[in-house]
């Protein structure tokens, strides 16, 4: 009885495996037939790691709407993406910074005309513990805090408490952006705690009374009940601005940057189709859903 059953199970298993193999073989063949068509059905997007989540979400919705098309998304950093665009190994490059002059020269030498399209904006919010009485800080004060020049909250008009500086890991694009924009390219203080994820920064800022950290606007707004978002002044004379979709979009909030997709030349075919999707109302809704700010 037992032996019989075992044999039965084995038979079922073998036949199931065979069916799956045959099916995948058939679908593989038909796929190949597809891509042999005149139109390019497979495009690649490579570049900024900050944007991987956003671009993958776009790719997912795009592929759902357009069955038979494939968009492959890889990270590697903005620099890697631009290099790939110049070498012709990617159709679209995602970049969280503008193309550098040196890269542009290189492109023109290769007779490639990079076409820059701003697709979203990224705002970075500064967060502190909810009990912290500080409501606003200038960029200069933030710079002093993160470089370790100001060690106590009393240095920036708060209580006499030690400041715990929280940062993302140095591999994060946000780390570099914040360093460039707020620290004016100086090094972070050695004592800064480098946390592996945004959620860890929120967790720490919500429990440690002296903590200050920075996270993407979307994450900060989602965690508004656990941390306090600080308004930022560009300088002494400017008004204090709370980060929000509007202030990031209008450029009033100082710690924000545009996110780009770069193409070589004018978009056509599937690339155009994908670009149109990204800038469509639906594509821009994906932007908001993934925690960035829409541009259209």
């Amino acid at each position, binding site marked *: 009885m037992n032996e019989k059953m075992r044999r039965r199970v084995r038979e079922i298993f073998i036949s199931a495996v065979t069916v799956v193999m045959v099916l995948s073989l058939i679908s593989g063949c038909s796929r190949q037939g597809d891509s042999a068509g005149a139109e390019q059905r497979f495009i690649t997007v490579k570049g900024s790691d900050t944007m991987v989540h956003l671009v993958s979400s776009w790719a997912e919705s795009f592929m759902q709407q357009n069955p038979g098309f494939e968009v492959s998304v890889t990270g590697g950093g903005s620099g*890697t993406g631009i290099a790939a665009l110049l070498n012709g190994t990617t159709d679209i490059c995602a970049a969280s910074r503008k193309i550098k002059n040196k890269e542009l020269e290189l492109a023109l030498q290769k007779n490639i005309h990079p076409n820059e399209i701003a697709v979203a904006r990224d705002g970075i919010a500064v967060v502190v513990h909810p009990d912290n009485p500080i409501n606003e800080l200038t960029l200069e004060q933030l710079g002093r805090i993160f470089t370790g020049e100001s060690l106590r909250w009393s240095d920036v008009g708060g209580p006499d408490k030690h400041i715990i500086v929280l940062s993302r890991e140095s*591999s994060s694009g946000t780390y570099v952006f914040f360093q460039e924009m707020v620290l004016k390219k*100086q*090094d972070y203080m*050695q004592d800064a*705690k480098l*946390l592996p994820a945004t959620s860890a920064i929120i967790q720490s800022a919500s429990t*440690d009374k002296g903590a200050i950290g920075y996270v993407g606007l979307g994450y900060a707004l989602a965690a508004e009940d656990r941390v306090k978002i600080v308004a930022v002044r560009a300088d002494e004379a400017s008004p204090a601005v709370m980060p929000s979709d509007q202030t990031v979009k209008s450029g009033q909030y100082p710690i924000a940057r545009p996110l780009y997709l770069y193409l070589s030349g004018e978009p056509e075919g599937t690339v155009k189709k994908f670009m149109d999707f990204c800038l469509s109302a639906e594509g821009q809704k994906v932007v908001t859903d993934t925690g960035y700010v829409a541009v259209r």
Partner: protein
Amino acid sequence: MMKAAGKERAIKVTLFATASTSILIVIGIFVFVGKEAGQFAIEPGAKELLGSRWVPVSFQKESFGLLPLITGSLLVTFLASLLTVPFGVGSSVYISELARPVEREILKPFIEILAGIPSVVIGFFGLVVLAPLIKAVFRLPTGLTALAGAVLLALMAIPTVISISEDAIRSVPESYKAASLALGASKMQTIWRVTVPAALPGIIAAVMLGMGRVIGETMAVMMVTGNAAVITASPFDSVRTMTATIAAEMGEVPFGSDHYRALFCVGIVLLLATFGLNMVAQKVLKKYRMG
């Protein structure tokens, strides 16, 4: 007849190949990691690694001093062993010598489950439960400290230490204990003066293997130690361990850059440390089995 012999031979060769793969892999890893690290030693030079600042991403000047990372790993490992030894040895003595069979049946599976919890889950527990607890108990500004990392690592090392030292204690010959008891020693005297000393080499090896796991562990420490690259001896400061550094930075580093190669140098130091610990532990174990 011939056919059977041939078949046996083929199986033997296959098994030999699978068994020797691990040797090839170890050699391969050493060569590969060494090659990348070696290039750093040539340019910009091994002296760079002796610095006390680890600032791999900078608009000013990048520094690749390994000292804060090495001291970070050492501090966490040392604290973890302080916690592991009493818990590990105590439990193994209890389980092998004092526990009733029923208790053993309950204790053993739980210890095995503890050994099987994925380290990222332990790290999550550390971030949400342990770090706030440490902060409250020691009245610290933040719980993300070397101590938090050490406690998590101890949790992971303890099962290893328990099961290996339990084996060592069990294999102490019954005659030793019988002789001790016959001389009028109490049960506790027998355990602490006869059984444990006789099993000591095995217990030491167990602790060293546990430490090998601790120094190489990544995810859990990365989540709770705060990862600030500072040189400190205080359990209440943040530290950045070697493993966390590699894990956090390797994904994004430009291929072939100084930073990339510096991470391989970190890898070499780590590899040598675990390799050394394992070698010594194996030696101790071997000696003990023979004696």
